[in-house]
């Protein structure tokens, strides 16, 4: 194995990675007696202290249910929850905060659209278009609803580099396509899809477009009005926020016409046994007590994230990914899976004669946390004729030193299996 060549990293104008690292307490620990090197941010990002403190503070000070009681704690919690919604609106540049629905995460956001919009408006002969590189959570909800209504699921194939090309997309798109559901960024490969172009093509055929933004929000800027997408889904925990909270953005006009996803408290205006009148947006889609502290914590994560120079954050991440790509390619017998130009934040790879799970266990013993497995994207694995990959994925707190630690750990893998 040769040492990776050194790439000059722009000297952090506007972004001080050491200071950012100080904000993430989980980074500062040892695992198996070695300093933790966390390279699994595509699974979940670590949380800055301000998010942890905010969630704790909600429970310590403002613990109450929202939208109900007249007492002060409830007023404070309600105000903070709605304030978080406004922060999400501003983050996505949605027109109105009524277009922002809090969910449990990306998966629930997608299921909401499948069961409310698609189940109501799709019928036999209609088609839902997905791509080959989707996460299972952007495949299975559509399989379920297609079966329910007799619609067909059509798959846009990807290239061997892991790209979705306009031509392949156009070939599968037709006048029968009612909805396109696709990743903004691939979780298994890091590919950034050319969504602006694909959305325009879909709209020409009068199809709606849902973007799965789970892997995008922390790495590329998202403006739902500029994108002109109809639905956008993401999870808080991949944006340095808490687990168990996510967002569905939907165009107001579409959300207005959709029936509730779940029935329960808070989503109604009045209930009698004869008739129930549903609440206005966005509450119509937020049945039951929501993840109050989680949503407020997500608001804090957005505040933290936007307090940084995001162009500088992205330049830093892109430089570390480039360094990682070259460093990994220099490891003998290592093959990168997913090599689309312009990809972000993830490097999936295989090593000769070593199964990804063995790689994962061995590098873990060196303190390096990576993900191994099919990444909930089995069709992607099938495309490459493999069962699993090892994946190193980046957050803004990662540095080239982390990549060096990974490469040293991969050296250990080769020693053991050599």
């Amino acid at each position, binding site marked *: 194995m040769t040492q990776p060549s050194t790439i000059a990293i722009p000297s952090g104008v506007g972004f001080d990675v050491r200071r950012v690292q100080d904000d993430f307490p989980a980074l500062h620990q040892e695992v*198996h007696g070695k300093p933790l090197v966390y390279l699994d941010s595509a699974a979940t990002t670590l949380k800055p202290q301000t998010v942890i403190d905010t969630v704790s503070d909600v429970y310590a000070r403002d613990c109450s249910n929202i939208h109900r009681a007249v007492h002060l704690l409830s007023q404070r919690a309600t105000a903070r929850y709605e304030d978080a919604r406004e922060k999400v609106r501003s983050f996505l540049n949605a027109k109105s905060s009524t277009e922002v629905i809090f969910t449990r995460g990306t998966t629930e956001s997608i299921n909401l659209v499948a069961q409310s919009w698609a189940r109501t408006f799709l019928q036999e002969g209609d088609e839902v278009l997905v791509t080959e590189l989707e996460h299972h959570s952007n495949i299975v909800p559509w399989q379920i609803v297609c079966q329910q209504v007799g619609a067909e699921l059509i798959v846009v194939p990807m290239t061997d580099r892991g790209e979705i090309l306009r031509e392949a997309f156009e070939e599968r798109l037709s006048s029968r396509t009612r909805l396109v559901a696709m990743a903004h960024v691939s979780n298994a490969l890091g590919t950034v899809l050319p969504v602006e172009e694909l959305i325009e093509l879909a709209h020409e055929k009068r199809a709606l477009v849902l973007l799965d933004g789970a892997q995008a929000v922390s790495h590329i800027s998202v403006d739902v009005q500029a994108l002109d997408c109809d639905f956008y889904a993401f999870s808080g925990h991949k944006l340095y926020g808490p687990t168990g909270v996510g967002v569905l953005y939907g165009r107001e006009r579409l959300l207005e016409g959709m029936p509730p996803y779940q029935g329960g408290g808070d989503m109604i205006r009045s209930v009698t046994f004869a008739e129930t009148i549903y609440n206005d947006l966005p509450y119509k889609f937020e049945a039951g007590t929501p993840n109050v502290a989680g949503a407020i914590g997500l608001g804090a994560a957005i505040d933290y994230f936007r307090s940084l120079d995001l162009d500088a954050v992205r330049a830093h991440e892109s430089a570390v990914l480039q360094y990682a790509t070259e460093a990994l390619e220099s490891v003998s017998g290592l093959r990168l899976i997913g090599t689309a130009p312009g990809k972000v934040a993830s490097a999936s790879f295989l090593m000769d*004669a*070593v*199964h*990804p*799970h*063995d790689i994962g*266990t*061995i590098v873990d*013993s060196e303190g390096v946390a990576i993900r*191994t*497995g*099919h990444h909930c994207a*089995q069709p992607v*694995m099938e495309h490459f004729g493999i*069962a*699993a990959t090892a994946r190193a994925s980046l957050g803004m707190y990662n540095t080239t030193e982390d990549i060096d630690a990974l490469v040293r750990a991969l050296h250990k893998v080769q020693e*053991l*299996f050599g």
Partner: protein
Amino acid sequence: MDLRELYQEVILDHGKNPRNHRFPEHHNREGRGYNPLCGDKIALRLQLDGDTIRDVGFVGHGCAISQASCSTMTEAVKGKTVEEAEALFSKFHAMVMGEDGADDDSDSLGKLVVFAGVREFPMRVKCATLGWHTLNHALRDEGGEATTE
């Protein structure tokens, strides 16, 4: 935690060159195994002669732990009765799960004791038991697919 506890020479050897990594010429039982956690798949066939496992082999792919476990398992159960093979699985299972008193049985496990280190790696227990679950499935002639879940 010592990696060598997990990746013992025997395991590395069997992982790299699994024994009985082929289907037997004749078989009357078959099992398929799937670990949904990692996507690993194996298929196992065996020739049951009365109550005795005359021949057994497997094909498929997986990590060093799962391949070595399948390999050593096929060696261990060949020539054994169904009851003996099942008893061996119970002991093996107790060992990798780190159950109380499991160590007392280590003598009867023979070469399979090299998997004792797996108990320190809870995420890898399923790798070590995939082959055994599949064998169990084949012996019971259940059809379908054994999973580690």
